[in-house]
């Protein structure tokens, strides 16, 4: 970190360091998403607009196997506990807490709520069965004292992940299923994404970065 940016940080012009909590049910793609934050795939990949209705499966984006990841990167395994990563995005230095989503680890999320400037909630939009579980967990998180009474309110970004899979719910469907409309006390956004190819990830991050920069 250079002198100049330290100076700016101290003056309050820039908010350099922020913490983001990444939570969501197990197997929703949180760790893959973080891997994508750290090593964004080259932008040459065709970007597909998930906002349009995704019911026509004429040319579904191939769900790339893990071999397409950079060779240096270890294969994604279920996280035990949590893992920490840092990366720079725009004018932010973001520390992400990648929490494990397995049932036995969910009670530990609350230990890290206090640190969160923003929350990234990841859902598996192809898993219609457990969306109700995700809804319950999301609202429990939002109702938690550390999140609820935080000022300024932490923005919530929902990634409707695995949007490339056939039969995945659209963003609108997810919004309805999660009851996001009822969130009144903070800014929120939902972005369909594919963590493997990186589609939609940048869009979500842009929104989050602007929200976090706006907080002072």
């Amino acid at each position, binding site marked *: 970190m250079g002198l100049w940016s330290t100076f700016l940080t101290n003056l309050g012009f820039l908010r350099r360091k922020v913490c983001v909590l990444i939570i969501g049910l197990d197997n929703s793609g949180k760790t893959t998403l973080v891997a994508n934050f750290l090593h964004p795939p080259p932008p040459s990949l065709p970007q597909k607009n998930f906002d349009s209705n995704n019911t026509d499966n004429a040319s579904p984006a191939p769900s790339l196997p893990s071999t397409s990841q950079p060779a240096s990167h270890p294969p994604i395994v279920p996280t*035990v506990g*949590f893992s920490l990563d840092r990366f720079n995005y725009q004018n932010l230095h973001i520390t992400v807490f990648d929490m494990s989503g397995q049932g036995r680890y969910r009670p530990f999320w609350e230990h890290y709520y*206090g640190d969160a400037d923003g929350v990234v909630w990841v859902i598996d939009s192809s898993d219609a069965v457990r969306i109700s579980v995700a809804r319950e967990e999301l609202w429990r998180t939002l109702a938690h004292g550390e999140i609820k009474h935080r000022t300024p309110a932490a923005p919530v970004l929902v990634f409707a992940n695995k949007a490339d899979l056939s039969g995945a719910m659209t963003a609108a469907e997810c919004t309805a299923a999660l009851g996001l409309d009822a969130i009144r006390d903070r800014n929120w956004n939902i972005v369909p994404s594919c963590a493997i190819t990186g589609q939609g990830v940048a869009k979500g991050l842009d929104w989050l970065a602007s929200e976090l920069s706006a907080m002072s």
Partner: protein
Amino acid sequence: MGKKDEDAGDSGHFYHIDKSTVLQEARAFNETPINARKCRVILTKIVFLLYQSETFHTNEATETFFWITKLFQAQDIPLRQMVYLLIKELSTVADNVFIGTSSLMRDMTGKSDVVYRANAIRALARITDTSTLATIERPLKQFIVDKQPNVSSGALVSSLHLFNANKEAVRRWANEVQEAVNNKGAITQYHALGLLYQIRQHDRMAVIKLVQNYSKGALKSPLAYCMLIRYACKIMEDEEAGSRSLYELLEGWLRHKHDMVVYEAARAICNLRDVSSTELFPAVTALQLMLVNHKTTLRFAAIRTLNKLALTHPAAVFPCNLDMENLITDPNRSVATFAITTLLKTGNEASVDRLMKQITGFMGEISDEFKVIVIEAIRSLCLKFPAKQSLMLNFLSNVLRDEGGYEYKRAIVEAIFDIVHHIPESKEFALSHLCEFIEDCEFNKLAVRILHLLGTEGPKTPKASKYIRYIYNRVILENATVRAAAVTALARFAVQLPELRERVKVLLTRCLDDNEDEVRDRAIMYLRIIENEDLCKRYVANESTFNWASLERNLVHYINDDSAHSQPFDISSTPMTTRDQEIAEKSRAVSAAAELSAPSLRRPSTAGTSTARSGQAASSGDAQAGYAAAIEKIPQLSQLGPLFKSSSPIALTESETEYVVTAVKHIFNQHVVFQFNCRNTLNDQVLEKLNIILKPLDEEDGDALVHETSIPISQLVYDVPGTVYVVYSRPGGACPTATFSSALHFFVKDCDPATGEVDEGEGYEDEYQIEDVELVVADYVLPTYVVDFKRLWEALGEAAEVVETYQLTNVATIKAAVVNLFQVLGMWPCDGSEVVPEKATTHALLMSGVYVGGAKVLSRCRMVIGGEGVTVEVAARSKDESVARTIVDAVGA
């Protein structure tokens, strides 16, 4: 000022910290950005508190642990290492420590140039349990073969810790570990060898191969060689006596370039079982060279080993005498102490005088701990050369007058006690020294013991009256504990020496005015007892006591059972021990304790076996207490009331069969419980729903017993013992004898011998016949000791007697007949009648016991050799005639 400085010196500037403040400070971990320097200090404080044995509650520890995990945000390396340390320390106290798993994995798989990879591995192993082991297995395997020695070591040591939790997983890494033995780092070789041994330790051939392979000099680490030596010893220990397959290797190591290896090899040879003097010779020569080494540690190690060897092979140590003489003046007092005590053991009678003089010279300069060693040496020397006892006693009484702590004084007093017991001619001299000692003794415990000894031994000496003055002085001058002991000692004189009786009575009468209850009570009691010859015999001359373990158990049971309080406590069901037994027990306990403490000097790996050995040696009273405790824990059996008697275990199978079963019979008030200890010796099978089917061979016998329940073993895996209980009730307290045919009934499932994983499926039903179980009269009889057999026998009278005469054709001698009768009746021998003189043609055996239900029964068996075998006239007397009849009939059956 001085004191405060001393304390502060211990704990530096952390002197004033306390837990709650530090935990408050720990909130700083939540701050952003993290102040690494501040956090490091706080972490250090927490570690300091933990090392000062401050206890953290689980929730405190867990909370702190979660705060600490946030410090992973900081990239400060020293802070990170501190975090690892805390994770390791808190892993045992806090809950949910696995939360750190992924973060640690990230750290250890990170770039190869970070210094803390090894630390991360070690911390990770601590927070890993069986469920998360699979996650870290692959990276750990890879790190074992890492090029950096510290990373490889970290992975190996972590595997070693994990091995205890999950043997199978770690076994799969054997190839990597093998590779790591050839790692360049010396310490890595050591760790790899240790783990390799853990993996293979149950495969004897593999361990032999391991030792032979690496003995050729491929290793660099001297520590690794020391391990090899220990493994070699372990192999030889398990071998049959006399075979020394690896002795050559040990001898070869005596010429190793590292002192450590040479010493380890020499010590290993000295500790070999039944070592011969030719085998010892090279080892002693090596140790002798160390005696003149300039390093004090080496001299100390060598002399200590020689000292121990001198106990068993004084002749082998003899050649070192000259070198040891020089060590007496060694500047290190510990070395000098060992030198002199070793010389005492190896020396001949002539040199003792000179050595004693030298010892007296430096006794004042050594610590109590070493003084005790010297005293022990003198004690054994005294028993070796009884002719020198006056010299030794003089020495002992001199040191007794010196300053010293309790342990030291106790060692001296015990040495004198030993001399009194073993060398009768020293008695008077020794007692007078002890008398002098108690005149000015600051340890109550010792004074009481000495007074007790005076009470028992004093009356047997020719000039008994002179001790009375010393003892009475205590009554006047000492505190209550000692006064009470002195009163008892006085009473013993009065009982044993009628001519002194009147005079002692006068003294005891004076004690009636004592201001302590205990002293007054004792005086009153003894004054009454002295009057009555009969009471004297019962309470003073009688030197037997109750078996403490079972007395305690019975009392606890009595107190806990409210319904029993209407009746007084029945002491007759508690077995007695005679004085001889107690002494035998004590000496066995001492030797067992010695055996237990020996491994700490020798090698820790044998600690387990020797505990097992001393466990087996525990007396039957202790065993019964153990059974009772085990049964108490089982809900179905805890209602059965107090345990009356447990038989000794009976083997129902050969010890090498597929399933090994032993049976123990427990008699309760209304029930009989058969306890079957089962062990599965097949490592490819798991037995499920294992039960034991008992069928009375003779239906009539079996009728008196009603089968109530069986408690099966749900799953019996390889080599883990399990217990089946079968409960029969005895309606109306009947005591039938019966024979049961017995069989194991179970479902067999195959399992993988390597992993212990059980195959799917139902398994198949099977039965396995074992030997018959017999319920005999002896099971219902509790052997109890009686003080005065003759008087009790007369008191019961002929009216209560049942007599029968039998011809025992299956025995040829009186001795065999006596053994036979003990087996059949299970009673306690009285008046030393169990000892049969050689070639005796007639004998009378007197026995006593308590029959279930509480009836005391006495039996007299008169035997004569004649005709075919031995003719026995069995007479039994009991208040309950049917009991006497049962006893007599049992011999005929």
